[in-house]
């Protein structure tokens, strides 16, 4: 099978079709919580079925039941009309149901083909038959139209390619149902298109794909059918062509969202951050090359660019993550030139970084809301001998929790138990308490649901009103266009364009973001920023 973006009309019309998998009246309880409440969910072969819902709606729970991770539930699973009960993920895999997780399940040190055959190696006479595995992997790649060398170790592949290897692995299992959980969260636009091509090819092969995503654009371009979960219940299910974007959003959040990403008007003040001719090198390679930009008080400055353009590194350089020896150029903050040598110094000056990976870089998941919220500002709550003034700490945290509308049972709840959106608000709270004048935001709304996104941007708008400056990185261009006052575009470590709010133009931004990636270095127009 070759990837075929065609496949205009599938047979998804014919309604009385046999389901490949049918989940009937599933209820799943956790101590004190009903995660799923009488949910029924049908999957047809040759169909891409999108499952959407805010964080905490129960999507993951449903998929974990389907893929055999949770075995303790009420209700019934029918596979090809026959009742089945999976006792572990292996059972489900043998039945042809495979889940591709958000966190990839590949062994980085092993090669592509070793990963594809992990646990089911081809064996002849008790010896692993590498040749046979290589050939099969090669054929699999060719079937999917993938240009990936099966002999390459996984850690030498880009994230997008790894995702595709996962899919190849799933296909090798002769899967009939493939569950993709946020498959595009780490992919560039080109890779997303590629993934869609593969997904369509899968549909041709009569494989059922369950597609979980927060990105509505993707859902409308790939899904045949959409089911919406909210608070553990199915609140709507329809063919994609019968549903509008607005209807979908309303179903997801259960209320009308007039403006998806609100933009509050804030007075623009003095320059708070000025970066001049900043370069960052790692060994011989230049990660950032001669970047100059500025951020003013109350201003939200967007930073557009593809994965690997150096956006994250730019924020981290300003935040003092890299040693001075790798950095050239100057950083001016609050009118003074600074050499910020560590995150500690950055925070003391009033710069906060909200990192890309919320769980890995921002939160101590096993600790409470209070402990996380004051992590960066603990010094403000100390008596002599560094003893923590706990009553004052609790009071301040309670205030910020209610100010930011963080939904948590109490301030001594573990942050691991909060939803993604509320976790992100705890991260924001952490820096608010440290009196931050400039926020560096790296994908602040990744993996959080529509309602929470709006709330996060509202919060950012409110802070901007009070004079805080923002440098915002987001891969979701519509978001960036909606909330930014100005946008800089990075490509390959260089600044390629600057747009004021009046001149925002999605096509021009994409052009600037891909300027050096096609090899047309010479014909760049003269609008380069600054």
């Amino acid at each position: 099978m070759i990837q075929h973006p065609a496949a205009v009309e599938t047979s998804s019309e014919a309604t009385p079709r046999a389901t490949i998998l049918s989940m009937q009246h599933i209820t799943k309880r956790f101590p004190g919580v009903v995660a799923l409440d009488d949910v029924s969910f049908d999957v047809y072969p040759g169909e891409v079925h999108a499952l959407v819902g805010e964080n905490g709606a129960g999507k993951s729970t449903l998929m974990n039941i389907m893929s055999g991770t949770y075995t303790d539930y009420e209700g019934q699973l029918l596979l090809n009309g026959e009742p089945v009960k999976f006792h572990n993920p292996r059972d489900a895999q043998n039945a042809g149901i495979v889940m591709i997780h958000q966190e990839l399940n590949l062994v980085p040190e092993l090669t592509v083909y070793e990963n594809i055959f992990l646990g089911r190696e081809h064996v002849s006479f008790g010896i692993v038959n590498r040749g046979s595995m290589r050939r099969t992997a090669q054929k699999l790649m060719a079937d999917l139209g993938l240009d990936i060398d099966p002999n390459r170790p996984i850690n030498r592949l880009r994230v997008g390619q790894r995702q595709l290897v996962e899919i190849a692995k799933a296909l090798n299992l002769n899967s009939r149902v493939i569950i993709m959980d946020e498959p595009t969260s780490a992919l560039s636009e080109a890779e997303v298109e590629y993934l869609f091509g593969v997904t369509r090819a899968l549909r041709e092969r009569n494989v059922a794909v369950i597609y979980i995503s927060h990105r509505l654009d993707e859902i409308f371009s790939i899904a045949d059918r959409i089911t919406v979960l909210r608070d553990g219940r199915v609140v709507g299910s329809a063919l994609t062509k019968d549903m509008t974007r607005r209807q979908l959003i309303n179903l997801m959040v259960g209320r009308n969202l007039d403006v998806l990403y609100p933009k509050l008007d804030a007075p623009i003040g003095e320059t708070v951050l000025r970066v001049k001719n900043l370069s960052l090198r790692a060994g011989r390679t230049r990660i950032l090359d001669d970047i100059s930009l500025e951020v003013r008080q109350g201003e939200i400055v967007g930073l557009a660019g593809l994965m690997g353009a150096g956006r994250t590194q730019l924020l981290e350089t300003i935040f003092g993550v890299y040693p001075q020896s790798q950095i050239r150029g100057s950083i001016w903050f609050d009118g003074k030139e600074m050499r910020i040598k560590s995150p500690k110094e950055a925070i003391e000056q009033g710069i906060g970084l909200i990192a890309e990976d919320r769980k890995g870089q921002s939160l101590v998941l096993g600790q409470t809301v209070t402990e996380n919220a004051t992590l960066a500002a603990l010094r403000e709550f100390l008596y002599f001998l560094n003893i923590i003034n706990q009553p004052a700490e609790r009071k301040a945290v309670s205030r910020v929790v209610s100010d930011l509308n963080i939904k948590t049972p109490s301030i001594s709840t573990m942050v691991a138990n909060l939803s993604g959106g509320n976790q992100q608000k705890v991260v924001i709270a952490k820096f608010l308490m440290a009196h931050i004048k400039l926020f560096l935001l790296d994908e602040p709304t990744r993996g959080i649901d529509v309602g929470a996104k709006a709330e996060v941007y509202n919060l950012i708008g409110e802070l901007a009103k009070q004079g805080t400056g923002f440098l915002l990185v987001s891969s979701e261009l519509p978001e960036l266009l909606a909330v930014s006052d100005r946008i800089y575009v990075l490509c390959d470590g260089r600044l390629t364009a600057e747009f004021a709010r009046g001149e925002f133009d999605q096509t021009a931004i994409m052009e600037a973001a891909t300027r050096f990636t096609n090899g047309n270095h010479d014909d760049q127009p003269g609008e380069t920023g600054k």
Partner: protein
Amino acid sequence: MGTTITTSGGSALSQARRTFRQGLGFILRFQSFFGLIIVFVLAVIYSPIRNDTNIFLSERNLSNVARDVAETGILATGQLLVILIGGIDLSVGSVVALTATGTAFLLMRQSSITLPLLGTIDVSPMPAEGAIITILLLGLAIGWWNGWTSERFKIPAFVTTLAMLSIARGLAHIWSDSIAVPISYREGGADPSFEFLRTRLYDNVIPVPALIMFGAGIVMALVLRYTSFGRHLYAIGGNETASRLSGISVTRIKIVAFMLCSFFAAMAGIVHAAQLNQGSPNEAVGYELNAIAAVVIGGASLMGGKGTVVGAIAGAFILGILDNMLSLNNIESNTQLVVKGLLVVGAVALQQFRPRDLT
């Protein structure tokens, strides 16, 4: 996970199951405490009876248990700090040997050092206070080395402290020429005030080492609970990257944790010398494993970020009472080792039963 709260309980069965889980969760949270009670009760039951008195419960025996536990307890308190940051310190046994030897040497032997300009200065024999302070400073220095090498060269603590296990043992042999240094309090011997460390107070019942252990434990428990240093230890163990990006001086705090660990090891070494009336480079082999076992039995996670001083000391008591129980029943020490090993595995396995937190 969903967030709908169950309103009307569900079936009686699930209600009962929930109660059971809650009960289990409660017991597991205070695992070390319940473990201590169980071991204590077992020790009482299986104790030999002589002249109608329960030997285990006799004042003398309990006092001995407290004395024997003291060193493990002090070591476990320090070890906990390193384990909290996701590290481990394998060198504490050797550091006990080195510091015990050093203590005995400084109290008993004559030595001098020659400095430029100042000439030759007599260093020892020292008064008790001088020896104790010198040895505690030595502990801090060893800990600094452990922490600094781990952090500066990004070497896992397992390796740097394994190296120190060898270095400290070697230094102990060099310092004493490989022979035990006896401590005597006769004329021309050690400062008699040092003997205080091997006495028992309050009608000859409470051993001084046990008081030192409790003192150290209480201070560290308060530090962990109420100071920014304690809070930062847990944060670093929980997520080092997030801690660094939150402006915590991760490197400095980790080095301080190693320094305190070796400081407590030196404290245990001083107690050890006082108890045995000698300092020998061959002593305290495998003590690091007792300390780690106590910390783990006390509910700490070797991944870091989880554990308490109370748990660590309770763990030390569980090990101590078990040893005592087996000795009273004349079970040979090799069997004790087997039982101890099984106990560690059992305690850690139990932690896996903890009701998983909803994520």
